[in-house]
């Protein structure tokens, strides 16, 4: 029983990391029907920038700067990669462009921060806390709380503020929103900025739990993509559930079946969802009118 609880707790911590990154995929998909395939790299850059800044400023003061950096980085991705291909009405140009930018960011990071994986100093004690025989690191708790808080903040912003309403309007119907006087291309830029900012924050949250380096984003970005598909690209609740499912199933498979097959059930689930519920477990199926 203790073992099961321990596995579930560890799975939740990992799953929430996936969920935050997957949430970033959703943000841009909602407004522009495009995804940033360099989302893992946005996380990596956030972690590395955070690592450099935290030595000067400490964790708390570093955080706003990392958010600013993420906003800027996301805007750059949209401006260089996505806008051009949308203007050219290219159906797939943004896929190649965001992947290419991701590779460029990775190489940039290798040149700036070196090739070795680095240690991110933990802002919280690294001694585990024990709770009914289940051990967790304070940082794991911080990941779960931080991830939920961030998603909540973005949702509140979208629902309550006038700018957020522009985002919602643009995602509901881009053309109609444009006719109502909303600057939709600015909204799309903003959604990219916000998406990279959430990934950057996820980076500094996961940093203390895992060695950080230029290649850290690849695996996380891919798993988060699976989560976004499983949960549905249009449901904020979906990515949380999707992330938790993937995280927990990984740990349970690793223990009860075989650690060599850890990643298999998650990917099987991905295939099943694609086959039977292509919009995701919680996604809304919309009929595309042509």
């Amino acid at each position: 029983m203790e073992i099961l609880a321990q596995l579930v707790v560890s799975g939740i911590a990992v799953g929430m990391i996936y969920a935050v990154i997957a949430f970033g995929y959703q943000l841009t998909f909602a407004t522009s029907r495009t995804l940033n395939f360099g989302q893992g790299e946005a996380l990596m850059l956030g972690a590395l920038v955070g690592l450099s800044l935290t030595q000067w400023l400490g964790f708390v003061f570093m955080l706003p700067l990392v958010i600013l950096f993420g906003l800027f980085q996301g805007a750059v991705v949209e401006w260089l990669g996505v806008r051009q291909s949308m203007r050219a009405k290219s159906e797939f140009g943004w896929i190649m462009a965001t992947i290419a930018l991701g590779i460029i960011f990775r190489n940039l990071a290798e040149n700036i921060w070196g090739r070795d994986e680095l240690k991110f100093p933990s802002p919280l004690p690294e001694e585990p806390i024990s709770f009914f025989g289940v051990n967790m690191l304070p940082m794991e708790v911080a990941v779960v709380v931080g991830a939920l808080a961030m998603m909540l903040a973005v949702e509140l912003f979208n629902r309550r503020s006038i700018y957020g309403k522009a985002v919602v309007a643009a995602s509901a119907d881009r053309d109609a929103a444009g006719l109502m006087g909303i600057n939709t291309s600015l909204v799309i830029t903003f959604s990219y900025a916000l998406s990279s900012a959430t990934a950057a924050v996820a980076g500094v949250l996961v940093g203390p739990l895992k060695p950080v380096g230029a290649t850290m984003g690849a695996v996380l970005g891919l798993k988060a993509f699976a989560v976004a598909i499983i949960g549905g690209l249009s449901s904020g609740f979906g990515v949380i559930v999707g992330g938790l499912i993937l995280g927990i199933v990984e740990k349970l498979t690793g223990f009860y079946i075989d650690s060599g097959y850890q990643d298999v059930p998650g990917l099987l689930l991905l295939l099943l969802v694609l086959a039977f519920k292509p919009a995701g477990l919680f996604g809304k199926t919309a009929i595309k009118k042509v």
Partner: protein
Amino acid sequence: MSRNASWTALAVATLLGSTALASGAFAADPIKIGVSGPFTGGSASMGVSMRDGVKLAVDEINKAGGLLGRQLVTVERDDEAKNEVGVQVSKEHVVATVGFANTGVALASTRFYEEAEIPVFDNVATGTAVTKQFLPPDYENNYVFRNAANDSIQAGMIVDQAVDKQHFSKFAILADSTNYGQLGRQDLEAALAKKNLKPVTEEKFNIGDVDMTAQLLKAKAAGADSILTYGIGPELAQIANGMSKLGWKVPIVGSWTLSMSTFIDNAGANGEGAVMPETFIQVGTTPKRKAFIEAYQKAYNIDRISSPVSAAQGYDSVYLLAAAITQAGTTDGPKVREALEDLKTKVDGVVTTYDHPFTTTDHEAISKNIPVFGIVKGGRVAFWSKDDEAAATQVRVKGAVN
């Protein structure tokens, strides 16, 4: 007729003249040595240290006048630790190649050197199979040489150390899912089986995994009293950190990658006490080693070598190759291979003194008596015991029997 003859004479003269010119230019041409290694990514600390060791040796040789009156140049290529990139690197036109930090890359790339009859030196990657792919009689000649302690040597040493010296009996094997980890796991199992032992559990993990809870809980539930590892730095650090999280700490004994700076730095206090076999520890126990460490520190302006084993083996591989080229008197691949298989001069290296390191059937320069055991202590690798330290002050040469 006479007219024809004079034409022929002229043509021959021109031809001779041009070949003389060509061979003149040829003599001045530098000797190209390929360097293939992961200079980016999770195993970069091995690749970069190896490359820097290679460059140090090449510079020394060039300052001393080069080989056969020609200078050496390195053709450095990042194989990114990816098998397919390594294969592309192998298409470079070089006299010989040294390198490979990853068993998978070495296995995939060496075939092309074999086919082109170009000697290739594996100076870091340890997979046992690397030098055994093209053994005679199936192949006419084997062009793959190694001066690193291969996994069957390391696995044997790890098991001896864990069983006889540290007196453990219940082993959990944790290995990554790459060629390196899985071939190493097989070697560990074989070494345990020789002692009629079996691991209590075997677990796998992937490169880049965030969390090792499931693997560690399984080891704990199986009652393991020690963990034997086969992986690379960052993930090994995750194992040590994961144990601390679960409040379950048993000693780690594993392959030499536990000496990687990425393990030591990322595991911090949790990595202290990890034990691994090493061909070279950054301590100047002999004048040659002392000189090497000082030259390396000076050339690259660092204190701690990121992967001392890779640096030393990279350095030695160039000197072994240089001795063979000198002996062969040519850069012709088959001749250099022949010279390597019957090296007449002793090569005074950092790891050991190489006295007839290779034969036609044995392409491994390092034997079981050469490595010693290191332990992570205070963020560096120190000697595990006084015996290991004493052993390291002597130059242990390759035994007659492996």
